């Protein structure tokens, strides 16, 4: 347990972040280098450095803003922020935690609908086949996102280039994989 942890407001998001991913929000001195290098900062409600600042306040209303923001979902985990952060703050791990927290508290931003739909379809695909079945993924994603017309021209082109299999390539020991999914399901809320 770090020394500073004693001082973090118990009910705040900062506390959970320090506990779970060992990122200390107070380390951020707001230089903005993360936001300056972030490829998607311009589309975020709050660029990464602003997320850090909101966390530092330890005010419930600000925590709420973060969990409901599009920022945590637009983060593509390119890790540029961590790579250049002078304080070596692991923002990518923190974002992973915030996404899982946002989902478990049912505070997911509307704009994240497609992104989550995709992630879910992806995990569904490997849950059933063990390996990614791209056609299955696309169909499941369309079902989840209701973007039925998206990429209708792409799939045929992929098929003609041999890039899209019509049948899944399965892991043999699917029972094993199913058990892995089951055992880790608690942390996926």
């Amino acid at each position, binding site marked *: 347990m770090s020394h500073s942890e004693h001082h973090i407001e118990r009910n705040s998001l900062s506390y959970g972040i320090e506990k779970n991913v060992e990122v200390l929000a107070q380390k951020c001195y707001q230089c903005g280098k993360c936001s300056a290098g972030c*490829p*998607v900062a311009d*589309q975020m409600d709050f660029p990464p450095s602003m997320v850090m600042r909101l966390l530092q306040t330890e005010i419930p209303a600000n925590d709420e803003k973060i969990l409901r923001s599009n920022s945590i979902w*637009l983060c*593509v*985990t*390119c*890790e*540029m922020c*961590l*790579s250049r952060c002078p304080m070596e703050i692991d923002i*990518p791990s923190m974002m*992973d*935690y915030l*996404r*899982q927290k946002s*989902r478990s508290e049912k505070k997911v931003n509307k704009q994240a609908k*497609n*992104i*989550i*739909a*995709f*992630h*879910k379809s*992806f*995990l569904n695909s*490997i849950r059933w086949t*063990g*390996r*990614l079945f*791209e056609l299955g*993924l*696309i169909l499941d*994603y369309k079902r989840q*996102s209701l973007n039925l017309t*998206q*990429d209708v021209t*792409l799939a045929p*082109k*992929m098929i003609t*280039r*041999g*890039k*899209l*299999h019509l049948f899944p*390539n399965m*892991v*043999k*020991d699917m029972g*094993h*994989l199913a*058990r*892995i*999914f089951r*055992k*880790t*399901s*608690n*942390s*996926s809320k």
Partner: protein
Amino acid sequence: MKTGLYPGCSLTGSARDYNESVSALAEAFGLELIQIPDWNCCGATAAHNLNKELSLALPARILALAEKNGLEEIVVPCAACYSRLVVTQHELKKNPELKNRISEVIEMDYRGTSRILNVIEWIDKYIIPLLPEKITKPFNYKVACYYGCLLVRPNKVLNYDRAEDPQTMDIVMTKIGAQPVDYPYKTECCGAGFSISRTDIVSKLSGKIIEDAEYRGADAIIVACPMCHSNLDMRRPDINKYWKTEFKIPVIFVTQAIGLAIGLSPEKVGLKRHFVDVKIS
């Protein structure tokens, strides 16, 4: 020593071209690659976005399978899978408690001893020493080497090339006769896993990467990641629409370029499967 191969899902599907070029090189240089039996998906971005434990368990199963089959060294051509595997190895090494928990989840012994090579490390180790006498058609083009995110970051964990302006791929390219251009977009993000869910973001980010490569006078963008390739190549129509222009620069896997340089046919290295025509060969 036997080298294991973890192809990952893309290489069996949308990045079949990449797989073909890796196999073609292995064949041409007499290298044995043993696919890890019954491998599974590494979980990619989706797993660590939604479920941390799963994002460690899936790669751990792969690594445990490699260990079980006596594969002390495995090559992982997909940069995304490479990153997930190395990060998992690192996390579990750092935290023995977590390692025990994951071992329990995957019901297998996991030691974390496998040496994980990305495709360039594999090329450096096994192909570069044999390369000079094999080159028949020097790849005499200006190239923009695009590393993307996952080959170099998180830098302290991967401990591979330098995080800013990496050089390893550029060096490989000079060895086959190509001239790498100074390219500031080497490690900028292409949009990664947003290909389907946020095509607009991919179009924007990938477009910048392509535009700058063309501006620098490159004849081709060289990549080592199927996700980058699909964004820069397969998404080209979307990109062109977004940027209201016609970017023409082809996107070639590093293995394909080497294949061409040693005289393999475009078909053999999978070039015919690209969306953007590769006219340079």
